[in-house]
């Protein structure tokens, strides 16, 4: 389904749209307050952008350096060219340990690789331990936001979901009670787990270590209790030096939620004695995106979600309308690189207002890339005849002033003289909820000519 169709459905419940919009605007506002307390915020963004650009243009070197250091630390390193290879590596590690129960902290990469259904088909229990992730997992839905995965759900909906799956009592959506129950439920899962999977926020080439950021401490709970820790990362998660964390951790927390620092920034370097630590480094289309100069910088993304919170379209269409692992503005420039035809409506789900680019902590020119994807999509994917034809006609009219004048005359006459019911009939989508201006008798051109004649 195209974004506009899904968004139209989402908009049938205006109250919910208002609530969704306000909830995310609140986060954007918190981010503003937080960013404004940092002296040199714009310089920090430039620094973040610069470090990412440098890393990506030397990615081969840094990846090898990272692997070497991680191996020296006693970590096992695996390379996966796509999601399928990634999932198979995870399965192999689980098999080696006869693992049946897995806990996982938030990782958009494993979402992208569809790891959960893959392992579930093998009879393995995989539990998402981030509260929001657990909520959408119970609801059998994908996350609708990369930082706030269950932002589309009200607390009353969560209440019902927990009653059904966790056997909680009806509480009318009492957040304290519900989180308390989730905590009990998840504690048990942490204790029973054979393997813990985490994502990676930053991998440091010079040390071979990596950092995972969570607000719930669930990555630590999983990784410290289970004998095996598997960390999954895209190749773009690399930064050259430990000291660069000072730039990115500050940018990430503030941009994501307005916090000064994420509650847990957990640094992992080597396995505990007797335990195993694995890192899976995944490409899955990233090198292809890296090869496109216009879209390369989309790989700077540190997954803060600020572009979603600020996007007036995202806030009013909900994450699921994008039908992609990463929704919102950043997803709309990443997804077409994976499957142009499937995601061809996404770059058009924008007014090109540019707020996403200005809010982005690593200065990705998101709206400019949306514009560029549009140019590619109209050439490389099938387009409705009417759209193509009307653009051709418009292009031709605007290159010939005489024609422009005549067409303008007809249009103005029609707006003035045709009955409203006819003007706002079905083919005129504009007229469904909006009036068109009354066509003036005289265009500016005509007025100007007469004015000159009158010698004014």
């Amino acid at each position, binding site marked *: 389904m195209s*974004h*506009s169709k899904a*968004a*139209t459905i989402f*908009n049938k419940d205006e109250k919910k*749209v208002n609530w969704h*919009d306000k909830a995310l*605007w609140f986060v954007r506002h918190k981010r*503003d307050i937080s*960013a404004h307390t940092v002296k040199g*915020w*714009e310089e920090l963004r430039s620094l973040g952008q610069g470090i990412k650009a440098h890393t990506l243009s030397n990615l081969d070197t840094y990846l090898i350096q990272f692997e070497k250091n991680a191996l020296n630390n006693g970590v096992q390193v695996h390379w996966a060219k796509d999601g399928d290879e990634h999932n198979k590596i995870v399965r192999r590690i689980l098999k080696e340990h006869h693992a049946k129960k897995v806990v996982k902290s938030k990782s958009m990469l494993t979402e992208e690789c569809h790891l959960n259904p893959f392992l579930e088909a093998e009879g393995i229990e995989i539990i998402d331990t981030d509260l929001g992730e657990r909520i959408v997992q119970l609801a059998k839905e994908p996350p609708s936001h990369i930082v706030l995965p269950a932002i589309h759900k009200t607390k009353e909906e969560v209440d019902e979901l927990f009653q059904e799956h966790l056997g909680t009592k009806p509480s009318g959506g009492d957040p304290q009670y519900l989180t308390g129950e989730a905590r009990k439920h998840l504690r048990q899962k942490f204790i029973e787990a054979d393997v813990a999977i985490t994502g990676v926020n930053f991998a440091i080439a010079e040390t071979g270590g990596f950092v995972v950021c969570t607000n719930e401490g669930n990555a630590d709970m999983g990784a410290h209790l289970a004998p095996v820790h598997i960390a999954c990362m895209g190749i773009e998660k690399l930064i050259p030096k430990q000291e660069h964390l000072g730039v990115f951790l500050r940018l990430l927390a503030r941009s994501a939620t307005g916090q000064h620092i994420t509650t847990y920034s957990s640094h992992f370097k080597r396995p505990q004695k007797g335990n195993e630590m694995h890192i899976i480094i995944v490409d899955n289309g990233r090198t292809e995106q890296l090869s496109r100069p216009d879209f390369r910088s989309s790989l700077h993304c540190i997954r803060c979600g600020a572009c979603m919170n*600020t996007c*007036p*379209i995202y806030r*009013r*269409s909900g994450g699921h309308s994008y039908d992609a692992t990463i929704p919102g503005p950043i997803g709309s420039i990443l997804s077409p690189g994976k499957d142009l035809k499937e995601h061809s409506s996404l*770059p*058009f*789900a*924008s*007014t*090109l*207002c*540019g*707020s996403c*680019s*200005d*809010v982005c902590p690593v200065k990705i020119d998101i709206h400019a890339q949306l*514009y560029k994807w*549009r*140019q590619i*999509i*109209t050439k490389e994917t099938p387009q409705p005849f009417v759209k*193509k034809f009307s*653009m*051709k006609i*418009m*292009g*031709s*009219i*605007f*290159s*010939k*002033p005489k024609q422009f004048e005549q067409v*303008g005359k007809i249009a*103005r006459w029609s707006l003035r003289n045709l009955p409203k019911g006819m003007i706002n009939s079905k083919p005129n989508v*504009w007229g*469904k*909820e*909006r*009036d*068109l*201006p009354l066509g*003036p008798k*005289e*265009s*500016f*051109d005509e007025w*100007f000519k007469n004015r000159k004649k009158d010698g004014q």
Partner: protein
Amino acid sequence: MKVGLFIPCYINQLYPQVGKATLELLERLNVEVAYPSGQTCCGQPMANSGYEYESVGACNNFVDNFKEFDYIVMPSGSCAYHVKKHFDVIPQTDDVVKVRENVYELCDFILNVLKVKNVGASFPYKVGLHKSCHGLRGLRLGSCSEMVTEEYSYIGALLEEVSGTEIIELTREDECCGFGGTFAVTEEAISVKMGKDRIQDHLDNGAEVITATDTSCLMHLEGLVTRNKQPLKILHIAEILNSVGDQKLKK
């Protein structure tokens, strides 16, 4: 100083009063303005829809009409931004480069080229200033709420000097109105919702008039206001800045 006036296609055909106000305002400020008669459109409608290649004729026509001028002034931030940002779809001849460098949105031109702040207008109403996105985040006609910079607004600076005008504060100072060119039709539901929300913000904060640098945003908002019979008047910034003498709003 040779100044050429560009009147965007939809203003020319549907809102000639905005063109008139722009021309009269510039003349009142003693600018000798030429209006080349062969002009049509900046090419943006096709380009933003993904058909940049269909906009080449319009771009060339624009350059042919305006290559002789020192300044090209227009009552639109969006068209000015399009010429500056996207005219690389045609070969970068000297004429093209010159045209792109010399394009100005009207308020930017008055404040920063003419160095005039008080245009001698009088408009005793509560005005909500809608900061059209392409002018704001494209041309940086003002500070943007996302960025940590000093606060300023070219349009606000001119409006502040208008006698009797009270600029109201908005809850969301620079959110998009949802027009977005063909977006207004292809994403109709979201576009309408965004427009309704923007209007409500102005109403909630006591605006009698909504103004902006771009008639495209205003056409969308006006369409909603008219359909829903809301007590708001929609005027382009040029119409306010050109208000001299007693002004009575026709509601």
